[in-house]
């Protein structure tokens, strides 16, 4: 197990290094320099600015500084807003994004599992078809369309929820739903197929023949094992929630990290794009890593196979 964790950790760091290096060199390739504006800067000021941000150094020194900066949790300055650093943006935006993300995650997991279990228990009957139609729709409707749709119906037409902004718990409902829709659909499908597989196992027959009630068999015996694929999906799920929130925050005008990211893209604020990308990558990779480790701990069968193949 330790060997497995070490190996995964190594690959995580490698992936991180690749993406940070790639962002660094891509941003150097980007057209224009950070101080390009309508007014031409006097050369002395430009030289001063370059010196202040370390841009007068050779590229390898800049690269090294950047790597060291990220390793010490410093994601660099913003060139468009002189007084702001990427760390400021993260500190102000990430808590909001995190709240939204966790809310969406809870909705996705609870409703997804509910739908999936219902579908499996009523296999090939109408609740099954109903849940799977919802699931296919959830997968086919991109989050930003879902968001505008919800906004149009529930906020503009029915006026049940506020249209946008981030002020009260009521404000969080629509964005969280929009963000949760497609992961919920995936979880529903995943749960359904793994429930169907589990329900055909011998130990379920044993439980039934011992005279346990249908609900006891489902809750105590089936769901616990059927949850394993769902647990392994939590890593990619957190990824889709985080990247999905970029566009959702934009639509609902939520002051989260996603909005800052979009703003920096629209302003072509390269250092902020770089910094937030690096931050997102770290969060995502750590999530996937933790989920995989947790998965190995939950399911003892995985450990053996994992160690044997060394994967």
């Amino acid at each position, binding site marked *: 197990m330790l060997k497995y964790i070490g190996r995964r950790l190594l690959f995580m760091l490698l992936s991180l290094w*690749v993406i940070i290096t790639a*962002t660094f060199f891509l941003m150097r390739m980007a057209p224009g320099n950070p101080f390009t504006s309508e007014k031409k800067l006097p050369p002395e000021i430009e030289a001063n600015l370059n010196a202040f941000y370390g841009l007068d150094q050779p590229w390898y020194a800049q690269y090294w500084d950047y790597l060291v900066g990220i390793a010490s949790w410093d994601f660099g300055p913003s060139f468009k807003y002189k007084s702001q650093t990427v760390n400021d943006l993260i500190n102000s935006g990430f808590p909001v994004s995190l709240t939204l993300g966790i809310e969406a995650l809870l909705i996705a997991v609870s409703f997804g599992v509910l739908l999936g279990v219902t579908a499996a228990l009523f296999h090939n009957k109408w609740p099954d078809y109903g849940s799977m139609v919802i699931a296919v729709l959830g*997968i086919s409707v991109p989050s930003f369309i879902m968001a*505008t749709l919800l*906004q149009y119906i529930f906020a503009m037409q029915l006026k049940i929820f506020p249209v946008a902004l981030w002020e009260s718990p009521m404000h969080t409902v629509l964005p969280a739903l929009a963000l949760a829709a497609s992961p919920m659909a995936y979880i529903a499908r995943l749960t359904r197929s793994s429930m169907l597989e589990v329900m055909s196992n011998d130990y379920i027959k044993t439980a039934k023949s011992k005279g346990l009630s249908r609900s006891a068999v489902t809750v105590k015996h089936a769901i616990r094992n059927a949850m394993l694929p769902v647990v392994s999906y939590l890593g990619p799920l957190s990824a889709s929630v985080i990247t999905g929130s970029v*566009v959702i925050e934009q639509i609902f005008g939520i002051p989260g990290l996603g909005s800052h990211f979009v703003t920096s893209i*629209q302003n072509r604020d390269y250092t902020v794009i770089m910094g937030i990308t690096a931050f997102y990558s770290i969060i995502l990779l750590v999530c996937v890593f933790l989920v995989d480790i947790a998965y190995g701990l939950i399911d003892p069968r995985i450990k053996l196979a994992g160690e044997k193949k060394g994967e």
Partner: protein
Amino acid sequence: MDTDQLRKEDFELVGVKIEETEKISKPSLSFWKDAMYRFRKNKLAMLGVLLLALLIFMAIFGPYMSGYDYRTNDLTSKNLPPSAEHWFGTDELGRDVFTRTWEGARISIFIGLAAALIDLTIGVLWGGIAGYKGGRLDEVMMRTADVLYGIPYLLVVILLMVVLGQSVGTMILAMTITGWVNMARIVRGQILLLKNQEYVLASRTLGATTPRIMARHLIPNAMGPILVTMTLTIPTAIFTEAFLSFLGLGLNPPLASWGTMASDGLPALRFYPWRLLFPATFICLTIFAFNVIGDGLRDALDPRLRK
């Protein structure tokens, strides 16, 4: 049936004809015929095929139907609701939304297909070579793939679009630069399963070269999972295009893609909902069609599900 009605004649021996016990009464079905049969019985998947056929038909002929050009502005008729003149209404520059929608269909489907084909080519080559050669080469190739696999897909795409500029070509490049890894892993897994089969050994004994074994034996037998993965890559690519355009990283005007149309329509949602409604509906329908076709193919091709 009532027992009184049973007569002795009903139990006469009909006789066994030896030659007929060996007769195969059902026509023999190849794997693909069998899979196609099961695919055709899947109603949802057939609905997807029908939808897709319609969408492709409209993508080819739609832009010529209404008699409007997708890029001609007409400021005297802007933001018109759907009518007999403009079937899907017009946008803020008076362009015909119907024509633009099908122009967008061309771009979306083209991007989807191109991304899937490039992923397929790189993935099959990479995964095929790694799986077949094995050993150290496999280790190096698959570890590279693992590292790339860890990199968040959408972030890479966003980053590349910011730097490389916005065009159909850069979009496809951005999507495929890490997109092929998934295909490579699946192909490798299949090749590892297949390469020790007797028919591969037989072929090699007969002197077949490695490329021939790959092309004639391994890849065709791994076609099922490859096809499914490819079908499911297309909706991802279409989604990514729409997502990027929505972020303002998509194609530049006057090009019409569903994502840019939806993004332009969003601020006007309250007053001119059709400008968002039409492209959004077709994005969903296309993704839906590819998803159900992919699911149908997987169910039809997966031997474990066969009864």
